[in-house]
């Protein structure tokens, strides 16, 4: 009897806990679905528009939100065969790969030095690196134009390979400093005692341990390069040197004629690589963002 009496309040408590959890779940699902719908509307609209011919798009009698039947694939064909879109794609890929490599080659050793080898002024320098990131590219492109022009790189995508790191290196250095600092100090001391020099420590201990962070930084650099708009608009005019973002706008918008079908198709194709990369590396990205939460 006594046991029963003692049991009752506990059951009530756990019941309220379960009820609480159910409400939390309902609320979570509600907002998540709302969120998902909100962000999926633009890509949906893109897809619907991309699969319509110009006539179908401008047809006022059909609902623009509903897909056309049958689906028209002319946009892809025209885009691929009749425009410089494949060149933009290739240029973008070249620029992005180069910039990501350059960024990692600079940011990782810089972050290691700033984050782990505490020396006079390392704290100030680390903050300084971050501050340079805060200067917007819409402000920087004017002075950079002079520099790029002086180097004779105007109207060449190599100009982008040169200037994109000004956007990616500071931020990647900053996040890598965070990851490196989250690694317990004893780990490099153990490596020191084991006989590793700083370079071995970086490559054999820090980079493998901070791999999630490294991948997160790489994804960031990739996204920035892939999506950058102001610099290619400012520095490049020739079609054979253009990249996706600026190229799509300059070739598919002629005066006040917007080739909506092809613009949407180009946008979809341009968005595909980041989507694929995020989908595959999402776990790493999240693990990277929560690094240091567990004991080394």
């Amino acid at each position, binding site marked *: 009897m006594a046991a029963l009496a003692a049991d009752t309040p506990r059951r009530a408590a756990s019941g309220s806990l379960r009820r609480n959890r159910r409400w939390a779940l309902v609320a979570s699902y509600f907002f998540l679905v709302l969120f998902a719908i909100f962000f999926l509307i633009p890509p949906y609209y893109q897809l619907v528009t991309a699969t319509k011919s110009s006539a179908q798009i401008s047809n006022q009698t059909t609902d623009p939100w509903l897909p056309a039947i049958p689906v028209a694939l002319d946009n892809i064909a025209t885009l691929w065969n009749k425009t410089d879109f494949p060149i933009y794609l290739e240029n973008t890929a070249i620029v992005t790969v180069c910039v990501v490599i350059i960024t990692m080659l600079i940011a990782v050793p810089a972050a290691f030095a700033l984050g782990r080898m505490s020396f006079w002024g390392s704290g100030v320098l680390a903050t300084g690196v971050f501050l340079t990131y805060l200067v917007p590219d819409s402000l920087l492109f004017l002075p950079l134009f002079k520099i790029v022009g002086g180097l004779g790189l105007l109207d060449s995508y190599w100009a982008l390979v040169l200037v994109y790191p000004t956007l990616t290196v500071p931020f990647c250095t900053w996040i890598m400093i965070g990851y490196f600092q989250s690694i*317990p100090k*004893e*780990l490099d*001391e*153990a*490596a*020191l*005692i*084991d*006989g*590793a020099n700083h370079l*071995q420590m970086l490559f*054999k*201990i820090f980079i*493998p*341990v901070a*791999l999630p962070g490294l991948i997160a930084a790489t994804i960031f650099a990739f996204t920035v390069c892939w999506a950058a708009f102001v610099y290619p608009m400012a520095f490049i005019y020739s079609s054979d040197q253009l990249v996706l973002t600026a190229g799509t706008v300059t070739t598919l918008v002629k005066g006040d004629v917007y080739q909506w079908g092809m613009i949407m198709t180009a946008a979809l194709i341009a968005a595909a690589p980041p989507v694929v990369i995020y989908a595959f590396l999402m776990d790493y990205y999240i693990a990277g963002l929560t690094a240091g939460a*567990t*004991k*080394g």
Partner: protein
Amino acid sequence: MAQVVLRSVAKKFDQTEVVRGIDLDIADEEFVVLVGPSGCGKSTTLRMIAGLEETSAGEILIGGQVVNDLPPKDRDIAMVFQNYALYPHMTVFENMSFGLRLKKFPKHEIRTRVEHAARILDIIDLLARRPRQLSGGQRQRVAMGRAIVRNPKVFLFDEPLSNLDAKLRVQMRTEIKKVHQKVRTTTIYVTHDQVEAMTLADRVVVMNGGRIEQIGTPHDLYHRPQTRFVAGFIGSPAMNFLSCRLVEAAGGLSVRLADDLSLPVPAERAAAYRQHLERPLVLGLRPEHVTETRSYGTGAEFAMPLDVVEPMGMETMVYFLVDGVEVCARVSPEAAAAPGERMRFMADMRHMHLIDPATDRVIAAPAAASATGSAKALA
């Protein structure tokens, strides 16, 4: 195998002196424990020996060679850290062999050494696992294994058991002692736990405020502390300290604790103490030397009303007040009275310590001729 010698070693962080001139000789194969409260400089001292901190002054010699300017890897030492510091992305085998691989040892030699160490530590089945798949105790074994495979001149342990739960700590303590008996490498071990220090050490170095308070065998420190700090730090529950005055009594000297409580000083100590007659002093007496009256024992008897009673199973701690100061006594469970009741005690004054409050040093006196034969052990 090597001796480790510290000569006037000091360390300053900015203006703060953390270690203030330490002299220490550690013999080959000796197991020395540095113990003290947090912030006493013991870890810094160890890290200076390891080469992880530079010395501000003084010399460190390992195996007769001055190592002040040598980087850690050239000092031929191995260190075990409090949080294990295992490389999380490597298997146990890779963790243990990392140092050897960096030194480009041949593969078969690496395998032999790792397996030998793994057998000593009973982790041979874990070699393919990663640190996160291991329990705390297993991780600490791997950390020790990493130290053993290097076959260094000196092992350094920095509070290696502090992250383990109480039961595992006791188990690993025994394990460390066993490993030392098998490997016989000079070992310097840092802990804040005096029980660990007492059980493991050949010699204990008690540190406080960046200085060495006393160096001695565990037995020495326990029975013949030289300072009030050591007397209070070693032993659990801690030694009782009571303000007193040394007075001349009928049969010789006695310490007067309160108006109604004086305890006689054993005759063999009288000569040593006589010069401090009538001066304010502090009496130090361990709880185990204040017991219930025993027919076979000898000591000064007195009675006190009990304040708190703490049964521990095989013994009971009782507390009473003398002149407002709490005193702990260790009595047999059957003899303990209830709180509030008066109980008769016997103080074994052969184990008394007198401390000069001006210097906080224990006044030297002939060793206690203990019935348990401790005097023989001391000689």
